Each structure stands twice: as C-alpha cells, then as structure tokens.
C-alpha cells in the first residue's frame, strides 16, 4: 500500500473513534496508568498528545515509538468527557501499522506469529528478574496459542473425550 493510503485510513479512524472531539482537557493523561512508564510526564506520549498529533499530522508514524506505549486498558476512554474512544482507536491503529509492515516496536507470538504486545512493555516486564520469575510463562505465547495448548492438555487428560468421538 502507498503511504497516502495509510494517511487517509488514519483520517477515517480518527473520525470513527471520535478523536476529533478531543477538547484537550487532559483527563486521559491524568488517569493513564502508563504515566509511570513514560518516565516523567511527556505530552507526546500521553493519550491527549497522541490524539492531537494524529489529528494534525497523521504521517511518518512508522518510526514513532510513542504509539506503542498504550496498554489499551480503556481507563482514558472511560473517563473522557467528550467520548473519545482512544483504546479502540489504538487497537485499530496498531492493526493498521502492522498491516503496513511497521513491526519494529511490536512483539509477536513465537508459535503462531500473531501480534502479542508492544516491545516496550514486553521489555519492561522482563527487565527485573524477580518480576520475570513471577510472570512465569505468562508472556511466552499469545493467548490463543496458550488456549490451544491447554486444550491439547485437556484432550490428553480426558480419554473419555476420545470415546465420545465414536458415538
């Protein structure tokens, strides 16, 4: 796809998720749990900053790591007085970025290769050995692959299931 296509698609996403009704009140940044994660307050990385940046200049975004900070927890969407669906927008935007090959800030499932989470978050969670130990294999594969591996285990533990196949 051409670069102009991604730009026009972002424009549509901006309208679809009500990003243009942002009044810049800053409530989203205040409730954002990733605030600690930004380090110190940085407008460009906050939901409000991302909204403004993308409504104003939705180009050259492949190299922008700020778009990969959001946890998509929905806190900002819940608190927004104007009804900006930032979480929904973020998920759609990342989907769009991946479709256009902007993969450098994302981590993928080692089994199926589907998108797992932003690299920044992944690294953060694994940085501290204690934390990594507590996480166990939680981040090893994507939820879908994890589910299939559980299903496989269930199949092995429950032979009755095999019998039912013959009924």
């Amino acid at each position, binding site marked *: 796809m051409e670069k102009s296509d991604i730009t026009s698609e972002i424009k549509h996403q901006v*309208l679809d998720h*009500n990003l*243009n*009704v942002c009044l*810049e009140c800053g409530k989203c940044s205040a409730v954002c749990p990733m605030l600690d994660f930004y380090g110190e307050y940085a*407008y*460009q990385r906050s939901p*409000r*900053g991302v909204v*403004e*940046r993308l*409504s*104003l*200049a939705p180009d050259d975004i492949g190299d922008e790591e700020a778009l990969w900070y959001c946890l998509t927890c929905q806190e900002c969407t819940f608190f927004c007085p*104007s009804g900006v669906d930032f979480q929904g927008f973020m998920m759609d935007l990342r989907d769009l970025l991946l479709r256009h090959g902007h993969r450098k800030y994302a981590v993928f499932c080692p089994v199926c290769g589907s998108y797992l989470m932003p690299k920044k978050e992944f690294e953060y969670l694994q940085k501290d050995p204690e934390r990594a130990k507590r996480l166990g294999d939680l981040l090893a594969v994507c939820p879908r692959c994890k589910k299939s591996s559980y299903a496989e285990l269930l199949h092995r533990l429950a032979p009755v299931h095999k019998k039912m196949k013959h009924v």
Partner: protein
Amino acid sequence: MSVRIGVFVCHCGTNIGGTVHVPEVVTYAATLPDVVHAEGNLYTCSEDGLSSIRNQIKAHRLNRVVVASCTPRTHEPLFKKNCELAGLNKYLFEFVNLREHCAWVHMNQQEDATEKAKDLVRMGVAKASLLTPEEDLSTEVLPSSLVVGGGISGLSAALTLAHQGYHVELLEKSDRLGGLLKDVNRVFPTNTPTADLITPLIDSVLQHPNIAVHFKAELVDIKGFIGNFTASVKVNTETLDLNTGTVIVAIGAAEFKPDGIFEYGRFDNVMTQLDFEKQYPSGYTGLKRVVMVNCVGARIDDTPYCGRFCCITAIKNATLLKEAEPEAEVTILHRDIMAFGKVFEAYYQKALRMGVRFIRYSVDRPPEIIGSGGRAGSVRIYHELMGRNFELDADAVILTTPLVPAGDNEALSRMMKIPIGNEGFFMEAHQKLRPVEFPVDGIYIAGCARFPAEIAECIAQGYAAAAKAAAPMSRGRVVTEALVSEVNPLLCSGCGRCLGICPFGAIDWTDLRVAPERTRQVAAVNPTECKGCGLCAASCLSGAIQIKGFTDEEILAMVNAAAG
C-alpha cells in the same frame, strides 16, 4: 399661618420600643417648638397608626407631620399618601429614622439610645418647620418614537411599537434596511438563509402605516427631554424636524477590519468572515483547504473584550464549508472557543464530529500567514503543548474579527448626553437591572450599539427597548418628584461646573437679562430631567443651586438642632 407640627413616634413592636424608651421621646417631642401634638404608636404603618395621622391632622389643624419610625425607603410613600388623604401637601412630611439609625445599632445602650432618639426627633422637627409645599411635575408624552438605526434591533423595536399603535420615525443612514445582516448569507445555529429571516421583517416595516422610514438620514441634533424630543434630521439636502416622545438608539456596530495585521490587505485570499460571506454568497464549494484564525483584534490590549459570537460565526462557516465539500480540510485556530448555552455547545460538537479541526494558539506566538505573489499559501502555527510548528496549507485564510463600536457613537453620545463605556460602546443605566435604558429618561438602547450581540439577543433587546419606551407613552404623562435642584440665576457665576457634573444632562445654559440690551449666560435646570441627586448643589462654588426639600437652610437647621 403659624407652623403646627405633629410628631408620631413608632414602637415598631420591639424593634424600636425594645431599645428606645418611646413614651419618654413622645413627652420630649411635645416640648419642642411648634409641636402641637405628639403621640406614640405600636405600629404607625398599621391602619391604626395611619388613621391616627389623618385624624390628628384634622383635629389639631396640623400643617407639618414628622414620623419617627423605620426607613424612608419602604414607608415614606405610605405616610406621604396619608398626609395627602387628610388634605396636607405631601412635601410637608418629614421622616426620622429611629430603627436603622438608632435602635438597631445601639441595642445594648438603652439610655443613650433614648437620648439619641430625642436628638434625631429634634433635628427632624427643626427641618419640618422650614418645609415648603411643592407640586409634582407632570409633562405630556407624545405617542411617537424615534428609532435610530434600521438594523435587526431597530427593525424589531420599530415594528413592536408600531403594532402597539405608536407612530415611529425610523432613521437609516444607508439606502437599505437590514444593517450588517444584509451581508450575512446564513444564520447560525439553524444555517437558514438570512434573507428568510430579514426580508419579511423589512417588508412589514416598510408597509406599516405607523412607521415612517427615512433613508440616507443623518441625525444632526436632538433637543428636549422625555415626552417631547425634537430631532433635526438631514435627509439628502433637506433638514427635517421630527417631534417624538421617546428615542431608541439602535445604531449597531461595525466589523473590525484588521488592516496591517495577519497579512490582511496584502494577500487576496486573506479575508474577514464578512468578506468571505460576501465573496461566496451562493455557496461554499471550490475551497479544499481553509484555515480560520479566531480572536483577530479581540482580547488584546487595544480591544480587551470578547466579541461573544465570532467563534460561532467561524463554526458556522466551517460547518457550511464542510457540508459543501466533505473532504475539505477546515481548521479553526483559536484561543478558546466561546460556545455558550445549550444551542451553541451542540453546534460546536457537531462541527467537531464533522471533522473541523480546532487548534489552540497562544497570543504570544500568533499564527503566521505565509504566501507569495499576492496569495497566501499556508499558515504556520506553533502548537503549544507539542512544542513545535506545523504548517497548514491554505487555499483561503479567514480572519474572525469582533464587532467594534460604530464611528458615530461619540457624536451621538455628546448630542444625547448618553454615556459611553471604556470599549467605546454605549453604556446602559445598570448592567444587570436596567439593561436597555440610559440614565437619561426617555432614551433607550438595543442591539450591538450596547455590546456585540447575536441576532436573537438583538431582537430581544429591540422588543425590550420598545416595551420600556411604550410605558411612558401609554400613560401619556410622566410625573416626577418635585424634589429637584434649582438655580438662583442672580447668584450663578456661569462657571459651568454643574453642566459637566450632571449625570443626567439636566442642566443647560440660559440667557439672563442683566441690562435692557445685555444678557449673560447662566445655568438652568430642566426639572423633568433632574433626579435630585444633589451633585450640582455640592459642586456650585457660588451657592446658587439648592435642592428642594434639602435646602442649605433646612440642613443647617438640622445641624444647629443637633449641636445646640
């Protein structure tokens, strides 16, 4: 005829009686000079007390009445009316305030309070003996009104008065009615064509038998006061004299032309909102990228006020552009969005949802218009929070400017003696309580001459001014209190201080004949316009001005009574 004073001291329940020993005050009052009757009442304002006043006036042939009770603010008219019912001129009544000025402020000093009450009554009696009978002033009010200005406010006021049966002289400076609205294509928030709104109004004004419309008319001078104004109006080459009972000022305002700023006048495609509407009267197609800059010439040092509805005008044109060209990029650069009330907030939200972009700029780093060859090509804006510049491409740059006072305000203010505020707009008598009146009786204000107002407000103010003007005209007469100031022409030195100081324009020059062929100019008070405030009397260096009911003699008698 000798002075015969009756004193009525009120207990006001326990309000006065609980602190002041009223019987002692009554006994004391009876000993004062010229007092022929003194009594105490539980409530002088009750029917018992009032009938006692009436009866004692007759029984003792009283020719002065002093009531010592509460505040004149609430009860003076009542006592005066009862004096009149008993046949006594109401200006022979004197009020002494024993409640607010004595009992309530000295609740813990009963003996001292009683002594002070005696002092106050003595002062009242001293003044009462000098009172003179006066007559209320009454003047006829002509059932016609002069409406200056044929914009939406003037049209609304004129039509309302005409429907009520009053004759209206409508003055319009240009050769067409409708004012600024004539250049506006569509009106917010309904986006209906302006013509639908204003044409029926203009037609009914032009066809109404009670309205005489004067086009190309210029108000040269206006003389007179409530009831009978005489306006000299120049129409083309001839001068007309129009006599009316009231005047409504609805001269509107002008759009600010930002000459020399934001490249206005340098680039062809940089224009004001009104220029834009004039340039695209039939539609908004053809423009793909439009940048609007709000607050041009508003909320800055020179013009510190907010234009109130310019934001909505910008939103209106942005919405219309978007409707005509959904793919067009319309950006509004603003300092704050003023979208007040239930309608405009929804209007703003609608624009946001349509995709109109709103970007805030700071007054310290205003947008820069960049272009070449007589045309603007883009606008550079510093985004405060992002801390970087953006360049927005623009086929047209529209500057949103506020309304500024019309050029005629100064002249009209001098002519009618009506005040102008700091911003250059006319100033109403009271910001909250008297929004369409002037301190001068009989002159009213409506619309943008007072302050930028949107159409609905202009119409409402037009109706309000018409209603206010109709009140004295329907009564046919205005009655004013006789307690006004008076100039003794023989003492007047003609210095003119009082003329400048009078807030109501009630004082003017008059010729005093000092020898068979010689006259000199002295001040004279028009009693109909005078409100009896006393500023002129206080300012007079020659002691030539006295306020009836508060003459120097009367005041000094009170001072002597207090000191002696």
